[in-house]
Structures are given as C-alpha cells and as structure tokens.
C-alpha cells in the first residue's frame, strides 16, 4: 500500500525563508518516501537541531527531533531495537560534521542499514549565520569576523575513508535526481550518506541557487563509476570535475556485511519482538550459584 505525497502531509507548515533549499529537501524526501512504498508507521525520520532538522514535523511518519548533533545514535538505537523500521536521518552540516562528527565517523564504519541526508548549506542557519565545518576557508561570519581559518572538511573523502558503502552528493533543487538518490540509498543495504547542497539565501550569500546553476556537475552517467573505489577516492579527493562541484553517486560498495545483519546472527529475534512478560532467570541463578 503506497502513500501519496498528500498522505505524508501533517498540519504543520514549514517557516523557512523564501528560496531555502530545505523546501527542496522536504519535498524530495516526501516524493521518495511515497515511491519507496514503505508504510508510514514503519518509517522513522530522526533529525537533529537546525533549520532543516525541523522537517520531520511536516512528514506524517514517526519522527524524532533529538539533540543538536545526536540524531545518528538515536537512529542507531531505534534501528537495532526494531530492524524492520526504515530509518532515515536528516540533519544539518553543523549537526553532522560539527558537533556530531564523532557519531558520523563511527556510524560509517558501523555500516548499519540507515540513510543519512545532510543538509549542507555551509553555514549554521538556525543560530544565525556562523560558519559550519563545510564553510570555505576565509568565510567571514559573526563567530569568525576575520574569516574562518580552517579548511572546509570534505565529507565525501571522509566518508569513503571511514568505510561508508553508499556515498553520494545531491543538490536540493535537482529534485528528480535527488529523489532517485534517496530511493537508491534507502534500498542500499548498509549505511548511505547523501550530502545535499542546500542554498541558504539568508546566511550563505555565495552558494546561491544562481551560483549552483553554474557550478554543479552531475557525475552520474557521465563517466564516473561509483563501484570503482580508486576512481571514487580520486573524485572525492577534490570533489570537482572540470572546475565544477561534482554531485551524484561518488561511491557504492555492495555486498558488505551490515551491522544489523551481523547483530541478528547473535540476537535472532529483534528486541522489539521479544516477549518480556515473564522472563526465566533460573539459568542465571544457576550461574551465580557456582555449584
């Protein structure tokens, strides 16, 4: 029983700025969910704190808007508790690469079957325009009036180095492409990362919708083979093709174990399905009787 996009609506309305890329992300995610065919009570969307993290208020599935930087562990706990859930994490670049960097690192090597969509607007939107870890070196902001000194992090290269098995980039306003990416990522067995370029017209006056028009290059079906690890590493290393920002499927590795599959080898019945009404502790009493 598939859902229409209308089925996925809630009573809430987003209050993002006009032209915000989060609209593109929200709508694309809804399109992808309706295409995926998963029933909405079996979908859980976990978010952090930031402008775009409010998106699960506008999608009628289960949602959890956790703490800034911490959606990945919440999603991990929920997925391990109930592996049948389709778990999608949507979080800001600050959430994911800033305060949440450690969970990002370890989630990727964990290869749990969840999908992470990062709203990469290269800025802290909700707290009014400070730089984010993806801001370009030199970017001035209220917290870095002389320009940020660090070089921006490269999520694609990090993800491949950290062991992620589906590493892609999207653009929030190339919705057909982005939708298909989400569908593929959600179907991918293992951890999938989609870093989405998201214009923030209010605080990022450089990477605007207009700017992206001239500066993006879609690598899908354009010679890049995401199953070639070396090619993927090369592409990710600069993230550029012909002087433009590459987007599309950077790296895909299939057939690797997933964390949840391996857990199931030890704990066969998913936690949520186990009956806890009257658990027998007699064997434990034997253990501690030491006889």
């Amino acid at each position, binding site marked *: 029983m598939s859902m229409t996009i209308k089925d996925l609506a809630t009573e809430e309305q987003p209050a993002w700025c006009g032209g915000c890329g989060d609209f593109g992300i929200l709508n694309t995610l809804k399109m992808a969910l309706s295409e995926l065919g998963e029933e909405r009570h079996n979908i859980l969307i976990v978010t952090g704190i930031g402008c775009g993290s409010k998106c699960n208020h506008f999608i009628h599935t289960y949602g959890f808007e956790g703490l800034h930087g911490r959606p990945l*562990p919440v999603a991990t706990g929920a997925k391990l508790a109930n592996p049948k859930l389709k778990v999608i994490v949507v979080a800001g670049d600050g959430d994911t690469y800033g305060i949440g960097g450690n969970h990002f690192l370890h989630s990727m090597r964990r290869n749990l079957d969840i999908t992470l969509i990062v709203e990469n607007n290269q800025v802290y939107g909700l707290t009014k325009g400070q730089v984010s870890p993806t801001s370009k070196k030199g970017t001035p902001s209220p917290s870095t009036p002389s320009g940020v000194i660090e070089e921006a992090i490269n999520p694609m290269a990090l993800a491949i180095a950290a062991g992620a098995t589906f590493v892609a980039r999207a653009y929030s306003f190339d919705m057909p492409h982005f939708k298909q990416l989400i569908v593929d990522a959600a179907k991918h067995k293992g951890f999938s990362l989609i870093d989405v370029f998201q214009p923030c017209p209010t605080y990022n006056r450089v990477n605007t919708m207009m700017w992206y028009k001239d500066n993006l290059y879609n690598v899908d079906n354009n010679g890049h083979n995401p199953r070639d690890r070396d090619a993927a590493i090369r592409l990710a290393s600069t993230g550029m093709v012909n002087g433009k920002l590459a987007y599309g499927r950077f790296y895909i590795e299939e057939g690797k174990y997933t964390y949840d599959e391996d857990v199931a080898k030890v704990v066969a019945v998913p936690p*949520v399905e186990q009956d806890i009404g009257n658990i027998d*502790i007699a064997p434990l009493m034997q253990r501690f*009787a030491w006889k």
Partner: protein
Amino acid sequence: MIVDDFSWKIAGEAGDGILSAGLMFAKSCLIGGLYVHATAEYPSLIRGGHNHLDVRVSARPLYSHTKRLSLLVALNSESIKKHTRKLLPGGGIIYDSEETKINPEEVGRSDISLFPMPLLKMANACGGKIMRNVIAMGATLALVDYDCQLFNHILSKNFAKKGQPVIDNNIKAAKAGYDYIRQNFAHVKFPFRVQRQGDKNNIFLSGNEAICVGAVKAGCKFFSGYPMTPASSVMHTMASFEKTHGVVVKHTEDEIAGINMAIGAGFAGVRAMTATSGGGFALMTEGFGLAAQTETPLVVVEAQRPGPATGMATHSGQGDLRFMLHASTDEFPRIIIAPGDVQECYYLTIQAFNLAEKYQMPVIVLTDKFLGESFATAPAFSGNEIKVERGEMLKEVNEEDYRRYRVTKSGVSPRSIPGVKGGEHVASSYEHDEFGFEREEEHVRMAMHEKRFRKFANAAKEIAEPQLIGPENAEITIFCWGSTKGPALEAMRLLMQKGISANMLHVTFLSPLPAKKIAEVMRKAKLTIDIEGNKTAQFAGIVKQETGLEFNCKILKYDGRPFNPEDLATAIKDLATSDAHRIIILNGWQEAVKLKSEGELLLKAPELFSAVVEGD
C-alpha cells in the same frame, strides 16, 4: 574460643591473581552453605600498585566486610606493613619466608601468629610465580579447617576451559599449601574456623551483576554504553547475556552515543539501559534531559567513584547524589534509586524499568564502586518478586487525531511506538504541544511543564516508604542511603553487642524523596545520625531542604573508601555518649602517618584534620 566470623585479606600487586584466587575461596565457601562478602581495593593501574581483596565468611548472614582481619595473606612485604595492625588477636599472617623476614618486635603484635612459607619456591615448583595465590589458598583452608574438596571443585570449574592439566596443577598447588601448614604449624592454635554448612539456595554475585539480572528479568533488551570503572562490568555482564537472553549490547564510541542510542531504543519500544560513572554521566547530561523532554523511558546506572574529574577511578564514594538530582538544563522530575545491597540491586532495577515505562521518565540506579564491584551472598532470586508493568503503551491507535503528549490528569499520555499504525507522531526535544509539534506559547509551555511534574507526583504515590530496621525505641536512629547499608547494619550489630541499641532508616528512593516518612522518623528519634560517603552531607542537605529538619549528628567519609563496621560503631558510640562533637569525619589517612592508637583514627572535627595536613 573458636570464632565463626572469618575475615581474610590477600594483598599484593596488580597481576598477582589476587581477585581470582580470592573469589575462588569465596565461592568454595558459598557452596559450603556459608555466607560470604568479598570486596577488593585496587589502583587505576594494570600492573603494580597495592591491591587487596577482603573475603569475609560466616555461617550467619553478612552485610559487609570488616576492618579487623582474621588472616592476612601477604604476597609482598608492603602488604605486611600496611595491614598487620588490622589483625584481630589470634589472627595470623601467611607470607613468603624467603622474601620477608619478620622481626616479631617490629610488627609489634605478640597476639598474632606468623605463618612463613616458601611461597615463591613452592609456586615455581607448581608452574610459576602466579601459583602463589593458590598455594596460599590451600594454606588458608588448612588453618580454618575447611573442606578442600569444595575448593577443588571450584578450581576445576574455574579452569575447565583451560583443560585438565591446568586443573590438576592448581589442585596440586592448593594441596601443597594445605600440607605445608599441617606439617609445619600443627602446633599453632588458630582460633578461626570455617565450617561447611547445610546446602542453601544462595547465590553469590556483585552489585553490578545483580543489576544486570534485574535488567534481564525486567525485559531489558538493549544496552549501550562506554566502559568506565566501576560501571564497566554492567556492560560486560549484559554482554554475557547477549545470546542467552537476546540482549543487544552496543559498546559505543562515547557516552553521548551510549545514552542517545538507549533513548532511540526506548523510543522504539524496547526497554533500554546504559551504565557509567560520574565522568561518563557528565557527558550524558544533555541526553538525560532529552529523555525527560521526549518522555522516553530510560534507565541509567550510575556507579559513583570519587572525583572531581577522573578523580580516583577505582575507588568509592557517595558524592554524586546532588549531581544526579539536578543534572541537565532546567528542572524536570527524575527517579533516583540507590540500592543498598545485591538483593536491592536486583529488584529495584526491575522496579526502575517499570517506573521508567509507567511514567515515561528517566530513572537513575545510583550505586558506587563498593556496591557495584563487591560480591555478596543472597538467596537466589525467584523471578516472581515484581511483575513487568509497561504502563500505557498502545498496541493500536484508533483515534483520528492521536496526541502523543495528551495533557492528562495523571500527566501520563498513552504512548505509541514506531510500527504502530495511526500512532505516527514527532517526538521533539523542543517544548511541544500535545501532538509533539514544537511550540513556544506560554500556555503550552506551562501545560507541558506541569504535566511532567504531575507524573512525578503520581510516581511518588506508588513508591514504598522506607522501613525502620531495628528496635522501635532505640537510643540512636541512623540514616543512610545506598551502599552504606551493609556497614551500617554491621555497626548496629556491634553496638548491640556493647549494649547500645540503634535502629536505622535506609533510604533507597532519593527522588521522589519519602520526606514525610523521614520527618516522622526524625521527630520520633532520640538521637539522629546521618551517615554518608561525602563531605558536604548531601542527603542531610536534601532532607533539611525538604523537611526543615536537621540531623543531630553526622558521620562523613570521603577518602575514597567505604565505611567499615568497626569505625562506624566507634563513631556512633562516641556521638551517642558525648554531645560535644556533632560531626565525625571518618578516614584512613592517619594509617599513613602512623598514629599510635586506633582511637585516634576517629577525628573529632574537620578543623583538627585541616590542622594536621596544613603543616607546610
């Protein structure tokens, strides 16, 4: 005179196999129908340092270790220096005759027996230095006249995985130690006896293990956490139940992930737990508030150790009570349960899970190194002590407009979990309306803030009041919480022997605090004494804040060690017979500066203490 109460200490360096040997002795006593208590002290080091394990055995129930010893097994000279003066009259020391020459004068104890043995030489003959522990065990068995077969049985079980040759070797070593004593010290009258008793349906486990049994019984199927002494064995024990009880255990990247994963699992409808010590809890503080705001059931075990910061990683204290009570942004109710012994660890953990789900609230099980890592005897748990109660969990949702955070009289809102059709909603860490949507209006805020507190008020009603232990009209009423229960019970016994009657209110629920009951007992009591393992008397502060009442006296300790019955009894007696000193700070530091009499071990006021250490 033959004494049934046997307190044995084995002391040496980390790596000497002290814990494993001692616990084997303890278990051999358990299966002989005896009561046993075992507690170890060790430094935050993998090798070296001074380690020691106390095992106390008796035919009657025991509540804690004691300060005074029956027998000391000293695996190095330092151990003799440190512990000889704790020996009871008639006690003895087993030590390596070739490593250490004891000059009886120097030891200054004509009332004890010395049992020099060529420990290392004998060990080398049995396979190496590490065998010293088992040889000393054999010697111990000979002195107390305990059944070697029981010990051999435990040895066999313990080394089963290593194969028969290893077992045989160990049995040989034990026998060598046994025989050496029988042959060389037949003339010595050692007054302590450990005698096999009739079989009992008892178990022997640590507080941390008992918590895990409780968690398993309660249906906890998810554990996520990061190792931290003295809480690590909670994770290890839960992990050992992975296959037998279907528990998913995740050693996470850090404590932040530990608590957030447990919240994720709890949100998904699975009973989940995490465990840590103070430093790890500090990192969980934000997540703790998340559980409160999203009304996600959560159980956190916090095993206290002294701080601040890394502090004394392998030691004990009761300094985190206030931290637990107020951790995280703004105010929200939480349940804090501090079990006092392994039995309470078990059943209060089950209750913790029930309360967490019924009131959709975070619950802390507050222990410490002493309780969590000490082993004790308890009657086997029947498994029928407490029923699993999951509170208002919806299996299906029929309403049109399901409101996850419906404002109800009880404060509890029926909960749906992912997978339940029609129960879709968003749980938000922001203040939110009944649907879960982020809201900031005054009336929404107040309705939700009130709702969270109403749940707490209702939880308070179902929690059993603490019961006075001991004679109703005692001269002294002592108040304590958490792990101090055991030493305090033993102290009461000692006082009774001296003709002083004391009773005790041991408080296990610190939040909601049974203030009415505490006040009632305080008002009735002749002399009230608060006993706590911290400097600022945190429990007394809370009681004063909640009841306006002050304890007459306090006994405090914050040297990283648990209370011991003897010092407690002396201090209580001191307070009961003089009213000059209202606070006694118990501590072991004078042992280092070598005071002459044991009486001086009790300092009468913090000023005196300060004067001594300030001598710069």
